[in-house]
C-alpha cells in the first residue's frame, strides 16, 4: 500500500523513544548549565547581591548598573560617547557603578569578560574596560580576543603582574561569566547596553547616544 511503505512498528517506537530521550536530556542539561554556579571563582570586587557584577565604589550612592557585552557594537558606541563621563563619576566616587559583562555573543565575549574581571583584581577595571571596547573587532568571534591578545591588551593599560597573566591563562573567571548571565537573565536584560540608575532603566532611544542627555539622566538619578 502506498500509504504504508515505511518501516516496521519496532523501528518507529525506537525512534520515538530515542527522540524523546534526546529532548529530555537536552532540556535538563540546558537548564542545569544555564544556572548560577555556587563554586565559581569570583573577583574580589564582585558581589552576588549585585547580580554578580563588578562593583566600583561599593559604598557610594546612587547605583548605576551597566549591562554590556564586550563584542556588542552598540556597547562600544555607548562607551565611546559616555564612558569618559562615567569614568569621571567613578574616579570622583560620585556613584556606585556595577558592570555586568554579559556573554551572549559568544566565546570571545567570555574571554573578554574574564580578562576584565582579572583586571578588576588589579584595580585596573576602568582602563581595561575602555581598552576592550576600543579594541573591539569589527565582527563577532573573529578570533581577535584570545588569551595572548588579551594579555597584551592588559599590558597596554599597565598590568604586568604574574597574577594577571595566570588569571587570563587559567580562565579564572570563565565560570563566573555564567553567573553574570544567569543573573542578567533573571533581571530581564534583553539587549545591550542597558543602563539603570537606582533601578530605573534609562531610555535607550534618547539617553544612550547623547552625552548631554546621559549626564542629565545621571543627575536626575542623584549623581552630583
Amino acid at each position: 500500500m502506498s500509504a504504508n511503505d515505511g518501516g516496521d512498528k519496532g523501528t518507529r517506537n525506537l525512534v520515538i523513544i530515542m527522540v524523546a530521550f534526546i529532548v529530555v536530556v537536552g532540556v535538563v542539561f540546558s537548564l542545569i548549565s544555564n544556572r548560577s554556579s555556587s563554586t565559581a571563582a569570583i573577583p574580589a570586587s564582585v558581589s552576588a547581591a549585585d547580580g554578580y557584577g563588578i562593583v566600583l565604589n561599593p559604598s557610594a550612592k546612587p547605583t548605576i548598573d551597566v549591562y554590556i557585552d564586550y563584542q556588542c557594537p552598540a556597547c562600544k558606541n555607548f562607551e565611546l560617547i559616555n564612558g569618559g563621563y562615567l569614568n569621571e563619576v567613578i574616579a570622583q566616587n560620585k556613584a556606585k557603578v556595577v558592570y555586568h559583562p554579559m556573554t551572549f555573543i559568544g566565546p570571545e565575549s567570555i574571554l573578554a569578560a574574564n580578562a576584565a574581571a582579572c583586571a578588576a583584581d588589579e584595580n585596573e577595571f576602568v582602563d581595561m574596560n575602555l581598552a576592550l571596547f576600543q579594541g573591539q573587532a569589527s565582527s563577532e568571534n573573529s578570533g581577535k580576543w584570545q588569551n595572548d591578545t588579551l594579555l597584551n591588551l592588559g599590558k597596554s593599560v599597565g598590568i604586568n603582574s604574574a597574577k594577571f597573566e595566570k588569571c587570563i591563562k587559567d580562565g579564572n573567571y570563565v565560570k563566573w561569566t555564567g553567573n553574570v548571565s544567569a543573573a542578567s537573565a533573571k533581571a530581564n536584560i534583553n539587549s545591550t547596553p542597558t543602563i539603570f540608575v537606582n533601578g530605573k532603566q534609562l531610555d535607550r532611544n534618547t539617553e544612550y547616544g547623547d552625552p548631554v542627555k546621559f549626564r542629565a539622566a545621571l543627575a536626575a538619578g542623584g549623581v552630583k
Partner: protein
Amino acid sequence: MDAKFKVVQPWLTLFSRLILGGVLLLAGALKIGNLQKSAMAVRAYELLPVSLANLLGYALPWVEIGVGLLLITGAAVRISGLIGAFTMLAFIIAISQAWARGLSIDCGCFGGGGAIDPEDTKYLTEIIRDLGLLILGIYLYFYPKGRFSLDK
C-alpha cells in the same frame, strides 16, 4: 474522498512533514549553540514572566529538534504535526502581540532575536511564514499517513 486527492494525499503529507519538520529542526539547531540568546529572544516578547520565559528559551530549541526529527522520519506524525501546529500558533500570537504593542524585536525564530531597530522588524513576513507552517501542521493532524513514513 475524491480519487485524485487519494493519490496526492500521501505525497502532500510527505511534503508537509519535510517542510515543517525541516524548518523546526533547522530552527532548533540554530538556537542550540547559544541558549543565552534564545532565552533573551523569548524575554524580548515581554509576554511571559521572566522565569518562565527563560525556561522556555532553554527548552524550546530541544523540543523543536525533537518534533522536527519525528516529522522527518515520519514517527508519530499525527501528534508531532499537532505540536508543530500549536508551536506555530503560539509564535503567531507572540509576534502579533509584539507588533500590536509596538515592540521592536527580531522574532528569534532561527537564532538571534531581541531588540532591533524599528525599521528592521519583519513582523508580517514572519507571521505569513508561520501561518503557512501552521496549515501544514493542521494538515498532518488530519492526514498523518503518507509516503516514506515510519508510522504504519
